[in-house]
């Protein structure tokens, strides 16, 4: 059997599967490095997000491999050999699974080297997330093997792949339904979310039982299929009846704050702490500019660590920075501009009515823009006369104007806001 496996690995669909999975892995990693850069949990989660595509590819590969005997017209010949019927099925499945997993893990190992250079948080059970991802690949290959055995169509492989893809994509939209946990594909939630250990363990058991069930069905081993089917149901029931995928709790160790020791305080959660130097460089000058102005924030902190349910605009002297998609593959900052834009929450006029809609006068909006430009020290365009006038005032007067603006904006005092804009 080992020799048969070796032959399959060299001559079957396996090399193609490995190449396809490697290519797909590299491609997925290259398109959204902001989802995984610098974070182990992000990398493992991203593998699970990518399973949407990778499972489809594995199913196509499995179906192609196990349909070969029929395409070559040698299925009867093989059936006449004195070997147990399940052996070729298992060998075909094992070859595709091993090759696909190696191809994919090869691609992710490259990303892991990039992550390992900078990562500041290693916990969060990401190792188990990854393991269940590999089990999902094995289950997908088993689906493919079964389809290849049952469906005599030449295009069975791609159609099975696309059907899986659609099925898994629909499941993602079942946000909150616990049955969505039966799909190994993650819905792209925040990297610091903690998937309960119970769910991970049950998912592993479910995927293993499903794999055995599918292989037993493909090899027509009725007793093994019944046993594995029973196990699969046993694992699936607690998943379906458990809590859903909605609002996962944050990993407390991942969102623990790491703060700068000098200058205005900048605090990032541990999982994003590798960005702290880049963030400090952008944020500290703005905080220094606001230092001592009544009503202005005194520190900036990672939004990941914000207490659950708190609004961004609560006046707690903190600017909350959104860093979930701010890491490049090499661990640098993606966009200084959007980090600066997070400071708009400071100057935003709090004029929402209870339903959350925001109706705002154009003149108020202009004053808002002026205050934001002043705060961020934006370069003035020649036709931006009010900003130039504000800058030409003595420094204390500028700060007084800004303090008056903050006071009016936080109270949504429209007439004061218009007056502040027009006095320049």
């Amino acid at each position: 059997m080992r020799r048969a496996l070796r032959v399959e690995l060299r001559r079957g669909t396996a090399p193609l599967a490995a190449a396809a999975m490697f290519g797909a892995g590299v491609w997925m990693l290259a398109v959204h490095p902001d989802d995984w850069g610098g974070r182990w949990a992000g990398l493992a989660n991203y593998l699970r997000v990518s399973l949407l595509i990778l499972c489809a590819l594995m199913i196509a590969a499995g179906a192609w491999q196990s349909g070969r005997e029929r395409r070559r017209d040698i299925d009867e010949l093989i059936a006449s050999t004195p070997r147990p019927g399940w052996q070729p099925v298992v060998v075909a499945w094992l070859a595709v699974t091993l090759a696909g997993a190696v191809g994919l893990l090869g691609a992710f190992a490259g990303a892991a080297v990039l992550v390992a250079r900078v990562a500041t948080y290693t916990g969060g059970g990401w190792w188990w997330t990854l393991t269940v991802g590999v089990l999902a690949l094995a289950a997908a290959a088993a689906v493919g093997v079964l389809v290849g055995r049952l469906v005599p169509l030449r295009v069975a492989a791609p159609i099975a792949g696309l059907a899986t893809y659609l099925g898994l994509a629909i499941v993602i939209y079942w946000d909150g339904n616990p049955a969505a946990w039966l799909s190994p594909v993650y819905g792209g939630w925040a990297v610091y979310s903690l998937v309960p250990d119970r769910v991970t363990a049950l998912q592993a058991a479910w995927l293993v039982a499903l794999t055995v069930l599918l292989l037993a069905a493909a090899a027509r081993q009725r007793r093994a299929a019944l046993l594995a089917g029973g196990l699969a149901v046993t694992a699936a029931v607690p998943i379906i009846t458990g809590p859903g995928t909605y609002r996962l709790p944050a990993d407390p160790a991942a969102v623990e704050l790491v703060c700068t020791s000098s200058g205005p305080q900048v605090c990032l959660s541990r999982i994003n702490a590798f960005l702290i130097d880049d963030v400090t460089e952008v944020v500290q000058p703005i905080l220094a500019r606001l230092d001592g102005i009544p009503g202005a924030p005194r520190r900036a902190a990672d939004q990941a660590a914000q207490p659950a349910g708190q609004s961004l605009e609560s006046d707690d002297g903190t600017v909350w920075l959104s860093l979930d998609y701010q890491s490049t593959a090499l661990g640098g900052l993606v966009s200084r501009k959007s980090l600066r834009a997070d400071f708009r929450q400071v100057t935003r006029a709090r004029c929402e009515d209870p339903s959350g809609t925001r109706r705002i006068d154009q003149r108020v909006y202009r004053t808002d823009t002026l205050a934001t430009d002043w705060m961020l020290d934006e370069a003035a365009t020649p036709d931006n006369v009010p900003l130039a006038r504000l800058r030409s005032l003595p420094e204390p007067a500028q700060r007084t104007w800004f303090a008056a603006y903050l006071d009016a904006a936080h109270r949504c005092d429209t007439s004061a806001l218009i007056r502040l804009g027009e006095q320049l």
Partner: protein
Amino acid sequence: MTNRLLTLHLRSRGAFTFLVGVGVIALLAWAAGTWLASRPYFDGPAARVPVVALAPLLAALLLGPTLAGADEDLEHSTPLPWRAWRAGHLLVAAVVTAVALILAGLRAPDTYGAHALVRNALGCIGLVAGGAVLLGARLAWLPAFVYVCAVYAAAPRQTSVVVAAWAWPVQPSTITPSWLTAATIFAVGAAGYVHGGSRASAGRRARSTGGP
């Protein structure tokens, strides 16, 4: 005579399966598109991107096996204008696919509707025809499957002319470069297929060249 030949040709290429398949795909595309467009949490007709990307791909995949007969070498030895037959086969299939998909996307045709479906049908059929030339009808599905899946999975967030050209399956139908790319792919794939036909399967090639 030609009538009889035509019937035989269609039967030998599995045209009936293809027609039924395209009909089913068009129905599914219509149902999925209507469902997606009517969800309050999506952005109306523009939520039909998955349908626009995948329905033409599925139809083109079904076209793959019809691009070659049971024995290409034997067919080539018959005194028929095969280039004309191949051209007719591909064009009729493209028109059938396009018409079926147009019917599925008539509602708001310019925001991920009929227009984009036609463009993607052209591109996917071109990829499948090219795949048949290079890999044989058996594996003709591979390039289209891999390419469209990869683009759909990883459509970039930014849009530029270059992105619009290579990510044509997920572009809105108002973007000209996406049409140019899809049309070019169709032209090249169709020209290759009409000129050379599907590559003969490996076993036959080996036998005809005296290999093992």
